């Protein structure tokens, strides 16, 4: 190859194709994002002097976390942890038990239209409010303590698990379902032998995942008075015992890690 052809080739440079094809839309999106960011930052009114003051304050604050103090209020941590675990286990079991019929009703290929819309609206409603908002009301209605937290987590689990179950059933292989129908199986046999084996492995994994989420959520429900280790954490913050708070946070991180590894292991075995 001669040098000339190389230089003439070098004029044509290859460029990566853009993600959004239409240049007009692309530039409009960039412009819109720029205007939005300018407006958002413009109206945020950060108190920079207060924030700058916060840096030494933050350093002092963080040094208050060290060393974590597990000993002086270990009994309280243990009690909060126990409460969190009860809440997590019971709410996951009850939530999944309730979400199964709702999830079946919310699958388009299983349920008639009125049932479908009814179940979908239950799922949408239980997913639209943050757990804390539900917990505030539950504490108002059922009094302080783990029962309010339990009910909150049940509602949250229904929305999560029911939706995913319904989507999984909608994605299943219709051939198997038809085969069972062709053998003359009744509705329950159809459910048990055609649909359940198809969705079960994924649903076990998601159940464990929900257990994991419920534990993490139970760590904050205590802030509004719904029991669990969050109550211990909140008390520690209120008393300015930051070393205890650090201990609680480390316990939460440790348990979440443990649950995550176990659930990952079990999920691998099941699938």
């Amino acid at each position, binding site marked *: 190859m001669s040098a000339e052809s190389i230089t003439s080739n070098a004029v044509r440079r290859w460029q*990566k194709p853009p*993600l959004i094809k239409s240049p007009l839309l692309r530039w409009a999106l960039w412009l819109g994002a720029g205007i*939005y960011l300018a407006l*958002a*930052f413009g*109206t*945020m*009114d*950060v*108190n920079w002097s*207060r*924030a700058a*003051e*916060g840096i030494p*304050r*933050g350093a002092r*604050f963080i040094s208050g976390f060290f060393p974590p103090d597990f000993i002086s209020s270990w009994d309280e941590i243990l009690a909060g942890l*126990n*409460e969190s*675990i*009860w*809440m997590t*286990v*019971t709410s996951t*079991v009850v939530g999944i038990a309730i979400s199964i019929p709702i999830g079946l009703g919310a699958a388009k290929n299983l349920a008639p239209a009125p049932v479908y819309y009814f179940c979908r609206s239950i799922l*949408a409603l239980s997913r*639209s*409010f*943050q757990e*804390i*908002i539900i917990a*505030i*009301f539950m504490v*108002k*209605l*059922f*009094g302080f*303590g*783990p*029962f309010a937290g*339990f009910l909150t987590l049940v509602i949250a689990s229904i929305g999560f698990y029911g939706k995913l179950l319904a989507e999984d059933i909608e994605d299943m292989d219709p051939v198997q379902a038809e085969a069972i129908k062709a053998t003359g199986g009744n509705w329950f046999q159809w459910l048990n*032998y055609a649909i359940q084996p198809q969705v079960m492995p994924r649903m076990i994994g998601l159940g464990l995942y929900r257990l994991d989420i419920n534990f*993490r*959520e139970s*760590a*904050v429900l205590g*802030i*509004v008075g719904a*029991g669990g280790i969050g109550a211990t*954490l909140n008390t520690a*913050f209120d008393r300015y015992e930051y070393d205890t708070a650090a201990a609680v*946070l480390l316990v*939460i*991180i440790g348990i*979440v*890690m443990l649950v*995550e590894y176990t659930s990952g292991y079990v999920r691998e075995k099941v699938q």
Partner: protein
Amino acid sequence: MAVTEQDGLKIWQRRDRNKQLSIWAGYFIAATVFVVCWQYMSGKTIWMFVWDAPRQAGDIAARMIPPKWSYVNTLWRTIWDTINIATLGTVMALFLAVPTAFCAARNTTPSVRFVRPIALFIIVSSRSINSLIWALILVAILGPGVFAGVIAIGLRSIGFCAKLLYEAIEEIDPGQVEAVTATGAKRPQILAYGIVPQILPAFAGISVFRWDINIRESTILGYVGAGGIGIHLSGSIANLAWTQVSVILLVILATVILSEWVSAKVRHSII
């Protein structure tokens, strides 16, 4: 699959005896754990309050109606703040999550032994501490306001985005990377032309998904003073202004539904 013969008739069962028994044993253990946890929890519950709850619920519902519609006018500013907290928090999280994800993915990490565990620890600790707890800490450091909320949402979202992103990176097609490597590309070029185009759709999906979750989360940050509509919610509940509470709840519901609609639209157009 187990087929037994009984009086010359073949009877089919889905599982053989031992497998069925071990499954029943699993259910039995799960049920026992549930009952034990329930026992402890009900010991901590004041059942008198629970039986009183329906009457309480009716009472609160009656006080909430009719919603005080004129109150909406004082909410616009905090709705804007809520959306900003979610959006800016997501943007901040994405900036930090991308390098974390590249360090955590087995196939792109600089060192499996040293860098990867650190990245995984960042992911787990960010995921296990709820945004409300982050907000609690940050309000103490930075002072109350939207800024603390943005950072709280950002810190909480790093783990989620990085986890999903690193899983996407681990699942890329190595053939494309090898092809780019074979052209003599340097490391940054391999990243830009071999890996990034493959994970870009996943990245867009993850960011919109997280934004949707963050809208929900940012509605409660005001409860600990970190800006957004939660300030009005906690204020109205504390003042027992139930007609205002119902307006706020409806506004939150509308915002959440709108954000879910937007994110579903964007995800559909990408995938």
